[in-house]
């Protein structure tokens, strides 16, 4: 049946600057000062090393379950590094590297994953939301922040992170649609790491790309090589600048890969092959960037040791945290505790004063960690 195609046709572009074989498109190469390149590299390295360290901390029971970032450093840092401190960053639950770039102390993050709410408290002047666990639910918040910035006449841009799986949620759709209609300064950064736990992208959506989902909302979408920090940076800078100039939202799909476990409760050998992982390991964003800097003679000696020392120091601070004060559960529940909750607080205070229970086994047994049946290999 013939029909009239709507003109102009819809296009989505792909951007790659530095590929996994080290080929560089010099025409597209962003013009980043040496300092900035070194800072980016350090942050990527720190992200990688901390990730490995945190997996060990989790295995030792010193922190609880968390979501490692290995493989996604370029996606996170290429993007977040285009923000100003006065811009807003809205993470999901897998943005350790980006959060540290934004100023979250490492020990605070550890505290968070050790089950202390204190770990979720941004510093007073920090323009970041904390970790959001329910997939995609942070995206409407990003749109609201962006609206508020615009309403107040402030030129802040909001960058929101989420995964490929998150694009299936209604909240992704509603947020993107609001952003399009309201034309607010928000950059949606999807880290398409190919998997949502055990569900591969092709079972997540039948669309060819994530980027093309922007067509549904009438704003630009672009697909970038998410393991190419230069490409991610270039695309993000463009999107952030457009947003700041009043050009509205952008969706950036970073094509990347989660090299490690989904979370420390996950066993990826159940659902994906070693070959697949090995293939993506060859596209490692860190290796690629290392080579790039080596050619530019920007690699610093002793950086690994420096980074490890920073991590070790943060872990020391984390471990020096005093045991949690149970009464603190009431400190921030409400601006002012309602009378009945205040009474509950008094009850707890009295219990804490009371002599220990008569028999030892009246105590709660130690809580088992959350887990599936098997421990993981990677």
């Amino acid at each position, binding site marked *: 049946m013939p029909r009239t195609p709507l003109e102009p046709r819809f296009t989505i572009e792909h951007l790659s600057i530095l590929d996994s074989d080290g080929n560089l498109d010099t025409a597209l190469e962003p013009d980043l000062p040496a300092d900035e390149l070194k800072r980016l590299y350090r942050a990527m390295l720190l992200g990688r090393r901390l990730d490995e360290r945190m997996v060990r901390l989790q295995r030792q029971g010193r922190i609880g379950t968390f979501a490692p970032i290995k493989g996604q450093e370029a996606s996170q840092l290429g993007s977040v590094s285009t923000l100003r401190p006065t811009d807003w960053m809205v993470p999901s639950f897998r943005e350790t590297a980006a959060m540290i770039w934004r100023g979250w102390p490492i020990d605070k993050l550890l505290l968070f994953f050790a089950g202390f709410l204190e770990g979720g408290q*941004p510093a007073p002047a920090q323009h970041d939301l904390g970790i959001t666990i329910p997939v995609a639910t942070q995206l409407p918040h990003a749109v609201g922040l962006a609206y508020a910035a615009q309403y107040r006449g402030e030129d802040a841009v909001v960058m929101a992170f989420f995964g490929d799986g998150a694009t299936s949620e209604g*909240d992704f759709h509603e947020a993107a649609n609001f952003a399009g209609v309201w034309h607010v300064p928000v950059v949606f950064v999807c880290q398409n790491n190919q998997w949502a736990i055990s569900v591969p992208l092709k079972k997540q959506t039948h669309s060819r790309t994530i980027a093309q989902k922007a067509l549904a909302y009438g704003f630009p979408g672009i697909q970038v090589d998410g393991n190419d920090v230069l490409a991610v940076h270039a695309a993000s800078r463009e999107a952030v600048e457009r947003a700041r100039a009043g050009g509205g939202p952008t969706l950036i799909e970073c094509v990347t890969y989660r090299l490690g476990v989904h979370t420390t409760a996950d066993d990826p050998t159940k659902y994906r092959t070693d070959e697949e992982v090995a293939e993506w390991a060859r596209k490692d964003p860190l290796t690629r960037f290392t080579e790039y800097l080596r050619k530019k003679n920007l690699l610093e000696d002793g950086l690994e040791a420096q980074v490890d020392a920073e991590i070790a120091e943060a872990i020391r601070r984390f471990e020096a945290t005093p045991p949690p004060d149970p009464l603190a559960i009431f400190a*921030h529940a409400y601006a002012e505790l309602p009378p009945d909750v205040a009474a509950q607080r008094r009850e707890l205070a009295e219990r804490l004063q009371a002599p220990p229970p008569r028999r030892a086994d009246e105590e709660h047994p130690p809580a088992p960690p959350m887990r599936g049946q098997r421990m993981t290999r990677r």
Partner: protein
Amino acid sequence: MKLNMVKALNLALRQEMERDRDVLVLGEDVGVDGGVFRVTEDLQRRFGSQRVIDSPLAEAAIIGASVGMALYGLKPVCEIQFSGFAFQCFHQIENHAARYRQRSQGRFHCAMVVRMPYGGGVRALEHHSESEEQFYAHIPGLKMVIPSGPRNARALLVSAIRDPDPVIFFEAKGLYHAAREEVPDDPEMMPLGRAQIVREGRDLTLISYGAMLRVAREAADTLAQEDGAEAEVIDLLTVAPLDRATLAASVQKTGRAVIIHEAPQSFGPGAEIAASIMERAFLSLEAPIKRVAAYDVPFVGFARERATVPDVPRVLAAARETLAF
């Protein structure tokens, strides 16, 4: 001014918006149309379409975007067109609005109000007649407010807007045009979390809120006339946090209580009210506390609504049983 509840709420919104530029309104049809019940009438003309926003049709994003605005420091007053459509955004309310202060340990909070028309009696279809306060009352971090008339509606809405925490604000559709009341020109506030004794009595306590308050009052009048029994009538005004002290004090005096609400009975708000009174006034209780509520069945169609929504004869029967116990 003598105003009906729609006009009284509109006045509260207008004055709060005049007072504080951070207050804004969003929701479906709240702008040009002034809301399907006209509560936001004329606000967009006065304050512009940036401050009174006709949003796309998506409740989760209405609440989610409001959360984002609140985190930035604005004070969104958003409208969900009918409380029956708020389950679409229940995750944003429970996961976020209610928790952000705690989660961020005070760095952020959500000073926002979610207004929704609720309740029956308006010959409306499914999802347009239900009474869902219980779902919000059980969520820590939220306040749940239900006014019963124009004047307290206006005062409570002002308080809700100025409250630093999220407030769910239910407006009984059946009351919107039911009566006009003198409402002072100057903004008036009423404390959240405080019930009101709207009729004093010594024989029995009738507890209700929202549209059912009328039923409680009429039952009290009849009891006085026909049974010579003086019922104390309590208007909760705030469902959560519950004003337990006022409830207990009343029943310590009367020894008997009947609770009336439109929500289904089982696991409903009346259960908490009854349990709470029992805990605090056990030795004064002369009879089991009775609940008169909707039956535990899904929406019945408005042709049969009167079979399940509490009415005066049902309250009288419960009160008389309680008095005779």
